[in-house]
């Protein structure tokens, strides 16, 4: 089943106002219902190698996994984790074997839409937000030193704005042979807008302005994406900035076959 008609997806990535290289990478596939965003780091230009490997390998892996058939039987969370773990291994091996890639790594946030649900996986400080009605919610929790400090009560969210430790992530793909992937699963409603972004957006633009942009410009998704990038750059654009917007246009319940209908009718 193609999700083309249920989902509208826009991707934009921009180097920002200060950096010469764009180490962010984005991929989206509306028909199969997924989006992947990675923010590379480390080495001279190896950050873009790491994020490139991540989005290419993962999107290929997801396409193969989803096209293999039996989509309704797939464990989507396991599929996402498997792809993230595989990409982690390849980036790690490359970093070990190529001196110019030593120390590279990448964050990852991805979303897979299936049967009126969103399955998420992330590593690092790239985020997923959801606009529902006029309310913006941050769905993922950063794997960053700052978030750990907030969680442990060492620092208040207000004081966090002043912190010098904004740029330290505690998890990334490609840094260790193993990686712990955070998975999530949520119900989806028509009208929802999902935002995947690199920290170049949420470090430069306040949540309230993100919310306002998605609320007001939501009917014109490409314009909303451009506006988010523009606000990050107007505020200084100190980092690469990438956004993927996914609007749920209509519901996408998975078709049930006769056998499963019978089972549910029997209450099994």
């Amino acid at each position, binding site marked *: 089943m193609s999700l083309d008609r249920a989902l509208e997806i826009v991707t934009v990535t921009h180097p920002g106002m200060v950096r010469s290289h764009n180490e962010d990478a984005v991929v989206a596939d509306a028909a199969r219902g997924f989006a992947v965003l990675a*923010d590379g*780091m*480390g080495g001279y230009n190896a950050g873009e190698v790491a994020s490139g490997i991540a989005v290419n390998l993962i999107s290929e892996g997801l396409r193969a996994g989803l096209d293999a058939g039996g989509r309704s039987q797939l464990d989507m*969370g396991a599929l996402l*984790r498997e792809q993230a773990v595989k990409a982690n291994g390849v980036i790690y091996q490359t970093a070990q074997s190529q001196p110019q890639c030593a120390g590279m790594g990448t964050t990852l946030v991805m979303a897979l839409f299936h*049967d009126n649900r969103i399955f998420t996986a*992330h590593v690092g*400080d790239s985020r997923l937000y959801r606009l529902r009605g006029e*309310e913006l919610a*941050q*769905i993922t*929790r950063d*794997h960053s*030193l700052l*978030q*750990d*400090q*907030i*969680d*442990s009560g*060492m*620092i*208040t*969210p207000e*004081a*966090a*704005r002043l*912190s*010098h*430790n*904004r*740029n*330290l992530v*505690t998890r990334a793909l490609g840094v*260790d042979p193993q990686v712990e992937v*955070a*998975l*999530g*699963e*949520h*119900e989806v409603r028509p009208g929802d807008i999902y935002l995947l972004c690199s920290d170049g957006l*949420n*470090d*430069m*633009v*306040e*949540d309230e*302005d993100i919310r*306002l*942009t998605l609320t*007001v*410009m939501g*009917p*014109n998704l490409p314009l909303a994406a451009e*506006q988010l990038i*523009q*606000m990050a750059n107007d*505020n*200084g654009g*100190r980092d690469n900035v990438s956004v993927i917007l996914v609007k749920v246009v209509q519901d996408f319940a998975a078709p049930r076959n006769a056998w499963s209908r019978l089972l549910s009718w029997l209450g099994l």
Partner: protein
Amino acid sequence: MAKLILSLDGQTVREYLIDKERITIGRRPSNDIQIDNLAVSGEHAVITTILNDSFLEDMDSTNGTLVNGEPVKKHYLQNDDVIEIGKYRLTYFTGQAAAAPEAEPQDFERTMIIRSSPLAAKPAPVEEPVAASHASTQPVSRYEEVRTDEEEPAPAPAAAAVKPEENQPVAAIQILTGANAGKELELTKTLTSLGKPGVQVAVITRRPQGYFITHVQGESFPMVNGQTLDAQAHVLNDHDVIELAGIKMEFFFK
């Protein structure tokens, strides 16, 4: 490197570099910063430092710890903070002049990976691995958890950036025709939407370069001074007349 300067009655006693993760302050000789005074508890306070950030914690001392005149239990130290313990003062200096994040060299801002967090705290299990046996009929458990999270002060460490628009002249829109004629709307937000949702919507964006009008939705595009706009953002000048969904309005600087 950050440092602390110990003083008594305005006279500097000693200078301490913050060169390790945990620095203890108290009356006993085992402390890193020993203050031999009866008003100071044996183990009075401790400063924990993680990379560039230092945190002061009072160790339930008898006479308490003040920062800038206020009693504190835990405090995130900022440049120039004055810690008072008994009659002694410790002034905290980050060693980074004008420690504003935007003034730092670019490389400092590059994202870096640290292998394991110095903090033992595990992030709350909001989106830890979902159980594999998730039946499609099950209620949306994850969603509810996320919702309760939002009730707390949103963990949104966003935008340490300076907002360039803040010294910009404020502009407004005055409605010229229709039922709301004469009404005025100040354009204080980053984005202001105009028109009727589902019919014709345009937004005015407030940018460092000025105010821009952009078409968002609807078959017909807005007009400015009788000219129909295209899909591009259009800069607004003082006393421009905008026409949108049959309503005329004037843009002006206040």
